[in-house]
């Protein structure tokens, strides 16, 4: 019982961390400045990628390490993210590379779409964890 409360507290803490991370890294809501001469579209996409990847890794590690205590419903939800995360990360990398090669409006639109998909997935992870607050 103590272990369960402890795990729930950890999940809540992780959710508190993940929520601002996803906000910070969105293309439209960046808190950090971008150096002069640097393209904010690229810098924000790269920030989003790095923090989302790390957030997924921590979420997957945590769920796997505490699977028995968290139960099958949490596994099922995290598995959905496990399935969607790699292609979403790949898509953002591909879109970022294409945009860096050719900064056309079309490539920018593709990059923004890929960013939105990855951002939504990060938020899904954060919401999932928040749902399990004690």
């Amino acid at each position, binding site marked *: 019982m*103590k*272990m369960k409360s*402890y795990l729930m507290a*950890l999940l809540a*803490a*992780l959710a508190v*961390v993940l929520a601002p*991370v996803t906000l*910070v*890294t969105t293309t439209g809501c*960046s*808190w*950090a*400045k*971008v*150096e002069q001469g*640097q*393209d904010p579209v*690229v*810098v924000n996409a*790269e*920030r989003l*990628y*790095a*923090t989302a*990847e*790390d*957030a*997924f*890794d*921590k979420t*997957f*590690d945590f*769920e*796997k*390490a505490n699977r028995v205590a968290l139960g*099958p419903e949490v*596994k*099922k939800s995290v*598995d959905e993210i*496990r*399935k969607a*995360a*790699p292609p979403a*990360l*790949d898509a953002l*990398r591909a879109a970022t*590379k294409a945009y*860096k090669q050719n900064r056309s409006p079309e490539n920018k639109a593709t990059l923004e779409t890929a960013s939105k998909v990855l951002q939504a997935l990060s938020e899904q992870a954060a919401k999932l964890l928040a749902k399990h607050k004690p």
Partner: protein
Amino acid sequence: MNPLLIIAAIEAATKLLEFISKARQQAARTKEWTPEEEAKVDANLEELKKKASWQIDPD
């Protein structure tokens, strides 16, 4: 209090702090990645995809 619980709590707190620190560093970046950094990022994703925790285990 169970010593194992204390150890687990310390480990979890350490990992959480590492994560916060890394996230803050990434969020504070002000420049585009260099080609070397890009190569590292791509290699890292390929490694993560192989990790056990990234796999979907049967129910």
